[in-house]
């Protein structure tokens, strides 16, 4: 994992001092709210319905046990004893006091954490595959590049007041687990024929009011040239992105309006004028950063096939958990374990301070001190010995964190919705909880197989419903909560698609029933071992629409 050097620490110290000063000046009235708002947003501090909300960055989702304990301490000391993992690999606290935020930032800085640029019209947290460094299908580890981009984008003076937020994602594996085509810039790591490392660059993807699949900006960019290229891409966006309408200010709209060719021409021209291919991250720095992400000293182990079979046979609970929550590791004898934060009837992504501390201990004991936060709002222990899986599972059980539903229909991704967010049109958590209860049965989960289900409380789509195999969108129907069901979204690079509307908005009860109907249609119509999304792609939305209408 990346370790701060004196420079990194100094920057955070300066930042904490700066924001503390800004808070003082706001409290004294020297700064008006209009002046303070963009400053606090650049520090991830929202003013929400009930209280302030602080969004703490978990850079590219990688977290040490020490940092997780630090987050637990923040939750306990300055909040209400819990935190919420987000769909962008960050964590949110819902109840901090403005007057405490300087101290919170100091406590975070002590464990090399911060809230810089987790909001505002600037470059946000770079997100990646949560199994980076351990996945069997990895081409190259995206983490060093995420760290290099993180530093370059932090307090970048030219891009502090972009037309709108800017989100970057990186995928380093064959399967895209970072949704690169739904970001402002998506990078997929590739090697050219000569074996050189580079990126395929996607631009103009996004969700919200105008979901878009990204277009290819560049087929191959040598990896070391990434910062110069990003700077050109951002500069063109900064100068030409729309600023007249908040809902048309993302780069996807610019690319729509001028066309990908024109945008590419401008980026390439700007990049070349600045030095083009001569602008490279020094090899020494690439090597320095990559070093932090070198594979740990894995023990020389065989796969624990026999033990696993024995444990599975002895305990159906363990069997289910091993089936769903374990990912094959590139190191033999190891596994990457997903800790689902979606217990039956629970709030997706929420975790108590006590659980955070316990999970930190588990990370130390079973995962070489490292964790990941995923955009599905779960946690991952990336380095677990297979021969310790049963012990880990038992420990998770005692914490009510053994829910065996990773990637299944009850692994629901949900924004906080109207219970917390002033932008929302409807509540999302209660709907997620009801779906979670309806589909809790283990056999049912198995039968339905992999399904992504996303709930957004409004069209801003923070729940990513556009890319859910099943998505629910909260709308306002004459002052009442209502939900639109969408089907057929897919976030992966290869089959990137936006979900389709199935009909008019429904009550929460009707919406949950409609999800049941959709599941039934799938089971009825699937062929061979088709997953939900494969069946959907084959038969289209009409059979689902008809069944849902008929059921109403």
């Amino acid at each position, binding site marked *: 994992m990346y370790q701060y050097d004196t420079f990194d620490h100094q920057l955070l110290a300066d930042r904490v001092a700066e924001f503390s000063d800004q808070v003082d000046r*706001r*409290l*004294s*009235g020297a700064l*008006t*709210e209009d002046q303070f708002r963009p400053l606090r947003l650049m520090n991830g501090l929202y*003013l*929400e*319905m*009930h*209280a*302030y909300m602080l969004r703490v960055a978990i850079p590219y989702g990688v977290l040490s046990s020490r940092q997780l304990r630090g987050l637990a301490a923040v939750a306990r000391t300055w909040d*209400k*004893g*819990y935190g919420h993992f987000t769909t962008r690999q960050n964590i949110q606290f*819902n109840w901090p*006091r*403005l*007057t405490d935020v300087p101290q919170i930032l100091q406590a975070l800085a002590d464990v090399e954490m911060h809230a810089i640029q987790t909001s505002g019209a600037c470059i946000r947290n770079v997100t990646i595959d949560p199994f980076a460094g351990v996945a069997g299908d990895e081409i190259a580890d995206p983490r060093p590049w995420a760290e290099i981009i993180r530093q370059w984008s932090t307090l970048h003076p030219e891009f502090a007041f972009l037309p709108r937020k800017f989100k970057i994602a990186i995928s380093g594996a064959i399967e895209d687990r970072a949704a690169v085509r739904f970001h402002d810039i998506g990078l997929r790591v590739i090697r050219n024929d000569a074996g050189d490392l580079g990126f395929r660059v996607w631009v103009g993807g996004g969700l919200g009011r105008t979901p878009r699949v990204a277009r290819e900006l560049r087929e191959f960019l040598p990896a070391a040239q990434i910062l110069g290229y990003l700077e050109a891409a951002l500069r063109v966006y900064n100068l030409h992105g729309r600023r007249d309408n908040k809902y048309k200010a993302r780069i996807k709209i610019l690319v729509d309006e001028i066309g990908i060719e024109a945008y590419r021409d401008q980026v390439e021209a700007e990049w070349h004028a600045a030095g083009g291919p001569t602008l490279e991250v020094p090899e020494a720095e690439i090597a320095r950063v990559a070093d932090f992400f070198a594979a740990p000293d894995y023990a020389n182990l065989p796969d624990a096939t026999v033990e696993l079979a024995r444990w599975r046979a002895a305990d159906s609970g363990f069997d289910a958990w091993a089936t769903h929550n374990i990912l094959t590791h590139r190191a033999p004898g190891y596994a990457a374990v997903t800790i689902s934060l979606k*217990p*039956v*009837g*629970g*709030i997706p992504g*929420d*975790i*108590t301070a006590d*659980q955070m501390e316990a999970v930190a201990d588990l990370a130390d004991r079973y995962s070489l001190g490292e964790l990941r936060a995923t955009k599905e709002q779960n946690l991952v222990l990336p380095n677990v010995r297979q021969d310790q899986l049963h012990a880990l599972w038992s420990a998770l059980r005692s914490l*009510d964190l053994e829910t065996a539903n990773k990637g299944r229909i009850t692994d629901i991704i949900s924004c906080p919705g*109207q*219970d*917390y967010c*002033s932008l*929302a049109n409807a*509540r999302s*958590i*209660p709907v997620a*909880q009801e779906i979670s*209860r309806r589909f809790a049965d283990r056999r049912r989960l198995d039968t339905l197989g992999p399904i992504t289900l996303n709930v957004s409380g409004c069209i801003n789509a923070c729940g990513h419903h556009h890319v859910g195999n099943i998505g629910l969108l909260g709308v306002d129907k004459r*002052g*009442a*909560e209502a939900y639109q069901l969408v089907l057929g979204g897919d976030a992966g690079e290869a089959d990137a698609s936006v979900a389709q509307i199935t009909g008019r908005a429904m009550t929460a009860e009707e919406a949950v029933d409609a999800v049941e109907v959709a599941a039934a249609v799938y089971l009825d119509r699937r062929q061979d071992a088709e997953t939900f999304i494969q069946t959907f792609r084959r038969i289209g939305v009409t059979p689902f629409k008809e069944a849902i209408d008929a059921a109403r």
Partner: protein
Amino acid sequence: MTKQIVTASRLADGRVLFRAPEGWSTDIRDALMFTPDEAAAAVARAQGEPTRVVGAYAVDVDDAGLPLLGRERIRVFGPTVAPYSQVEA
């Protein structure tokens, strides 16, 4: 005639406040009821307290003084879901 209350966020901690006879209260039962014109004036006056409150606005309420809109009721009573429910009740 529409009745309204005036609400804002306390600058120091972001907590929900209601315009009350003596300034601001966190308890909705203390909230003053206004006509829309009176509420608008109260909202304008709140601009004069920038180090105390932020984001003041008027909310339509029923005869009991409770907000009509679901969103506003959630703001008054808090999230409808337990803050840290991790286990099925």
